[in-house]
């Protein structure tokens, strides 16, 4: 090993260690920033190490790419609003997978013009471009649906599953053939195109509310594509970083699918997102809801000792996080305490709601995850549900015929009083009636969450 080789490998090893330490720092909110800065430093080391590689003989295109990437990446890092985080992450999965796919194609092309590709390398390249290409198109679709330039509704047509599975099987068949006979460029590029098409079709039938699972899955695939790149070019730091990313996305998809009451097999085969079509088994006939005035709600909150706020996606849509914080400050000034019950799928990606509330300056020790807070509802004077529906539906616990039966929910129905802020009596995305709304201790506060909260704040001040 030459000194230069040694230096390069040392930077890669240091980068790998710093990446793992960086992820480890994310197990606690304190110190996480420093850990991630170290990981960023590791990345810098690896880049410097690569640039002194003797294989690199020209720097014009490299400098151009680094400059353009920085110019695009900088605003994507600093100016994208926190509410847009899901689509921002989706598009970055696309960029990551795009890089892996293109490197794979370049590697195949170069090897073919230098006497061909060996079987094992073909296997690595195949994984790289198949995972990469389907992540590129799948993430683009997820981005489009979240950004809403593609309809967020599930798009279905007859024979969809058969077609998708057929397409995927064809891709795999070509892949298997190529491992045995790598010298068929036409088949290689066909495989890339098929995989790209499969990514589009895979995400097409998935509705906006299921995006947390899709984003997590794409996170995992992008990581696996990076790891495969490492196998193809024989680079351990890529393998390590890709494996970390792949594991992370995989774990998050399992957590998300459990929180949504979907089996993981269901997700892997892409047959999800059609739950919206299930009919409600319980109807609201004969039941009445109790609307509440702003004044009465304000009085309840002003004299409450223990308040639990249950934020849902409706809160994020209404951009009312700061109003929630103002209201909580007033309750605390009156001697009460306020906690936030965060369901794992509140928001459009894992952990999204926590970020939105942290942005509104709500201290993170008040943000409680489901298992931690569920026991505290019996003691809560008021549970304030803002724009959440299915995640507080008791049917998940006590109605075996309900489509969401078995889904873990927040035990809001155990609180002494419940105030539900909601635009209208429309059902949630699963199209199911929520008996919580008809519970005698539940009061409904209809209207836009932001407007209602602003009025509530003014009213609580007057109490």
């Amino acid at each position, binding site marked *: 090993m030459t000194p230069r080789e040694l230096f390069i490998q040392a930077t890669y090893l240091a980068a790998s260690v710093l990446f*793992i330490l*960086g*992820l480890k720092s994310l*197990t606690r*909110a304190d110190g*996480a*920033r420093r850990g*991630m800065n170290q990981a960023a430093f590791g*990345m810098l080391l690896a880049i410097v190490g*690569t640039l002194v590689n003797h*294989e690199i003989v*020209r720097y014009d*295109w490299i400098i*151009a*790419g680094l400059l*353009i*990437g*920085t110019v*695009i*990446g*900088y605003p*994507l*890092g*600093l100016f994208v609003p926190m509410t847009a985080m899901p689509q*921002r*992450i989706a598009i*970055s*999965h696309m*960029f*990551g997978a*795009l*890089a892996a796919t*293109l490197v794979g*194609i*370049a590697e195949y*092309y170069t090897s073919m013009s230098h006497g061909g590709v060996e079987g*094992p390398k073909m296997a690595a390249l195949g994984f790289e471009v198949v995972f990469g290409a389907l992540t590129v198109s799948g993430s683009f679709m997820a981005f489009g649906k979240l950004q809403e330039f593609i309809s967020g509704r599930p798009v279905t047509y007859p024979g969809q599953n058969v077609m998708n599975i057929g397409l995927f099987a064809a891709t795999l068949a070509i892949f298997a053939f190529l491992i045995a006979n790598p010298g068929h460029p036409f088949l290689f590029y066909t495989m890339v195109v098929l995989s790209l098409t499969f990514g589009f079709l895979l995400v097409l039938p998935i509705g906006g509310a299921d995006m947390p699972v899709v984003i997590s899955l794409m*996170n995992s695939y992008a990581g696996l594509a*990076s790891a495969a790149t*490492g*196998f193809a070019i024989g680079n351990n*730091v890529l393998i*390590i970083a*890709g494996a*970390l*990313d792949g*594991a992370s*996305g995989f*774990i998050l998809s399992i957590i998300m699918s459990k929180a949504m009451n979907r089996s993981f097999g269901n997700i892997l085969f892409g047959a999800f997102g059609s739950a919206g079509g299930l009919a409600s088994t319980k109807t609201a006939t004969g039941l009445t809801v109790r609307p509440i005035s702003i004044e009465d709600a304000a009085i309840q909150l002003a004299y409450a000792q223990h308040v639990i706020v249950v934020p849902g996606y409706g809160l994020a849509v209404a951009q009312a996080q700061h109003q929630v914080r103002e209201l909580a400050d007033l309750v605390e000034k009156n001697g009460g305490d306020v906690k936030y019950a*965060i369901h794992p799928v509140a928001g459009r*990606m*894992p*952990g999204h709601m*926590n*970020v939105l509330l942290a942005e509104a*300056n709500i*201290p*993170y020790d*008040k*943000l409680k995850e489901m298992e931690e807070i569920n026991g505290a509802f019996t003691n809560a004077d008021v549970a304030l549900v803002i724009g959440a529906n299915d995640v507080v539906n008791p049917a998940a616990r006590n109605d075996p015929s309900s489509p969401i039966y078995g889904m873990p929910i927040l035990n809001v129905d155990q609180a002494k009083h419940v105030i539900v802020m909601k635009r209208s009596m429309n059902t949630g995305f699963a199209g199911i009636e929520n008996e919580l709304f008809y519970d005698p201790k539940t009061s409904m506060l209809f209207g836009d969450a932001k407007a209602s909260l602003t009025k509530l704040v003014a009213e609580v001040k007057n109490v």
Partner: protein
Amino acid sequence: MTGIAIIELYVFVLAGFVGYLVITKVPPLLHTPLMSATNAISAISLVGSLVAAGADRNRVSTILGFVAVTAATINVVGGFLITDRMLKMFKREDRPPQVKP
């Protein structure tokens, strides 16, 4: 299968195992920063892109490498910046919240 390929497989499996152990300990509170962090870290595929763009092997490799360098750099720069921006917002109660400018 060559000896090197076997070692690479070991690295992959063990790194995945480390990832599993570490990431299951990350609280749901930080799942969004976790995802943006792993996304930034996996942009290490930039290393492969740099070689493709700079080794001057053929025009196809150079051009595809250039696009890949651009895409990966977007994730490196944007990914670490946005992760830091999110982590910066998470504050404890006992520390007084910073005054907004």
